């Protein structure tokens, strides 16, 4: 890891709001979902950035913004120094050759009526790279690369198992030799033994092809395993970001600590020793996020200050400069959060939505 020029993707203050509209003619905007609300991040060449967070934390929306699938509401995204939020259609098309996605659902992301060979060959067609026998040859090369039998070129997706379908998705993503691959929950729909196969495949391909990954998952042990650095998202913000070992070994944000303590451990004795930090309630609605620090209504360490002042994402006392935390009162080493009582009343947050018309 060297200097700034090694950065492949950088996001600056990325905001993505989705308007909720009501009415047929005027479609008045009645509220907005703050899906991503001010995210800065950078991904270096050849590394894997893991993004963890729960449902509604905005991690998938962020991924879609970074790949140019969603136009951003505000902020800038640089890929190799070019601001992709200002690109023309033609510029975007070229950008999309460099950035590919692998999706969660190996059933929903492949057209069931098309043959596997033509699905994997799509990127060649779209970018006009190869056709005829040449395309077939390259598709079969890709199938070989991801561990599929090239003779299955003419089969339909339904003839493959879940793990094999995910390999098809990987082959399609790699067709145009992308530099960045965004994996959105690539293994969560797979069985444990198959999960391991796909994770190993992704790692081998990274070494072989020098890929950069953004790896999004809710399974913390998988993310730890594949990532060099990990960012934790909560309600549209990154609350903590650090090298994987630093984050997992010594989480500073109370939410990261709670999330890590909640992860199930496949080891009975360790599971019995582990102290769970059980949070109050559910993740608040991103339509009307809490004031100040967004985690304060569920935080065991919350004080009055947290309700008004939004903490910046900076290195906290005693942390290396690449370990940043957005918290006024970060978790101290040895502190037992499970026993803490918040300084302010904890509220279980039920979203108070304006009743949206169907």
């Amino acid at each position, binding site marked *: 890891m060297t200097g700034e020029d090694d950065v492949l993707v950088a996001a600056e203050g990325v905001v993505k709001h989705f308007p909720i509209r009501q009415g047929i003619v005027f479609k008045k905007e009645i509220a907005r979902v703050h899906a991503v609300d001010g995210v800065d991040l950078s991904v270096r060449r050849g590394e894997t950035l893991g993004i963890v967070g*729960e*449902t509604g934390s905005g991690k998938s929306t962020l991924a879609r913004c970074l790949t140019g699938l969603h136009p951003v509401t505000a902020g800038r995204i640089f890929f190799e120094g070019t601001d992709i939020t200002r690109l023309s259609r033609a510029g975007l098309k070229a950008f999309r050759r460099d950035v590919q996605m692998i999706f969660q659902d190996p059933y929903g992301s492949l057209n069931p009526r098309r043959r596997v060979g033509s699905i994997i060959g799509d990127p060649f067609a779209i970018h006009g790279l190869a056709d005829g026998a040449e395309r077939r040859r390259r598709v079969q090369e890709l199938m070989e690369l991801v561990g599929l039998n090239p003779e299955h070129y003419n089969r339909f997706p339904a003839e493959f*198992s*879940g*793990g*094999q379908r995910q390999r098809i998705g990987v082959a399609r993503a790699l067709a145009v030799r992308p530099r960045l691959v965004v994996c959105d929950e690539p293994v969560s729909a797979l*069985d*444990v*033994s*198959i*999960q*391991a*196969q796909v*994770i*190993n495949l992704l*790692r081998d391909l990274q070494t072989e092809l020098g890929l950069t990954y953004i790896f999004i998952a*809710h399974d*913390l*042990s*998988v993310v*730890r*395993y594949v990532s060099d650095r990990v960012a934790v998202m909560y309600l549209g913000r990154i609350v903590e970001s650090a090298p994987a070992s630093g984050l*997992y070994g010594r989480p500073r944000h109370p939410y990261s600590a*709670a*999330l890590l*303590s*909640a*992860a*199930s*451990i*496949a*080891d*009975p*004795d360790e*599971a019995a020793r582990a102290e*769970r930090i*059980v*949070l109050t*309630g*559910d*993740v608040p609605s991103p339509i009307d996020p809490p004031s100040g620090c967004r985690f304060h209504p569920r935080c065991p360490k919350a004080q009055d200050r947290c309700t008004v002042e939004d903490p910046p994402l900076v290195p906290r006392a005693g942390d290396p400069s690449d370990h940043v935390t957005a918290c006024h009162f970060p978790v101290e080493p040895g502190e037992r959060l499970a026993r803490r009582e918040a300084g302010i009343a904890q509220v*279980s947050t*039920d979203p108070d939505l304006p009743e949206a018309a169907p």
Partner: protein
Amino acid sequence: MTLLQVTDLRVSFDTPDGVVRAVRGMSFALDRGRTLGIVGESGSGKSVATQTLMRLTPGARVTGRALFEGQDLLTVSDRRMRELRGAEIGMIFQDPLSSLHPLYRVGRQIEEMIRAHDGKATREQARKRAVEMLGLVGIPRPDRRADDYPHQFSGGMRQRAMIAMALALNPKLIIADEPTTALDATVQAQILDLMRRLQREFDTALIMITHDLGVIADMADEVLVMYGGRPAEVAGRRDLYYRPHHPYTKGLLESVPSATGGDRLRTISGQPPSLINLPSGCVFHPRCPYVMDRCPVDEPPLDPAGEPRLDPGTEHVSACWLPHDIAGLDERAETARAEAARRGRSGADEGSGR
């Protein structure tokens, strides 16, 4: 005292493609207040087995016995079964959104269940009980939330409502089929915590079906590992995690990414078997790294394995031809396995066997 005793349960379905042999001989016993974890991958038969116990698999050919307090669940009358479901045996499913009726208020659905089983309960009593149950599972302001529709609940709250419904009549047994798979980690922790607390309070027996080894490590007293419709290994929790005997169990445990793991995850090669065309002999042999000559020929019985035991009082059985005393994940067990497998192969076909 044994609450549920299942003996040699077999379930198959006739389909146009052939006979699907979903469960091929499953036996276990469960005491009050204990938790049995059933682990397995998709298609291992874990859900079919428990749905059959509840008689929720119409059209299946079922043999075997399942004695619940002396009555065979597989042969009691439909009427008796309806009484048992809900009142004596509660169920919690994976997807709470599709198990709750979208057009009825949550409280109303719990009331309905209470009144269906207790003819004497008035609407007011049933309502009171429903609100009480919702409060017990940690739904804030239960008297108000009882009047919400399922879509107004978050995923975690819906699963709590399902648990409230399953517990409303204080059943002796709860069957939970992937109860937390659809939930986030922090919510999963809340729900498991809740289930453990309620189980202790009501001395309920629990069958927990999941593919998540982490959840099992946390919840189960005994674990049954299903593969290809049969139990591959049954053991106390610590025995299973620290002294596994069956190569499939070992493979599963090693596929989980761990903090200390090396550069590559160990995997189980190949795919789970088709339940229509099952491999001959031991169903795991096409994927097994220790395959021996007899594996494709003879199906191994569930025999005692892995002495000595880490969980006294539980049995440890495994359906594998490897010597019964080779158990564990350490180097020594590994060498012993490889050595046993080598001896089990005739010299000529070194490395073939598949």
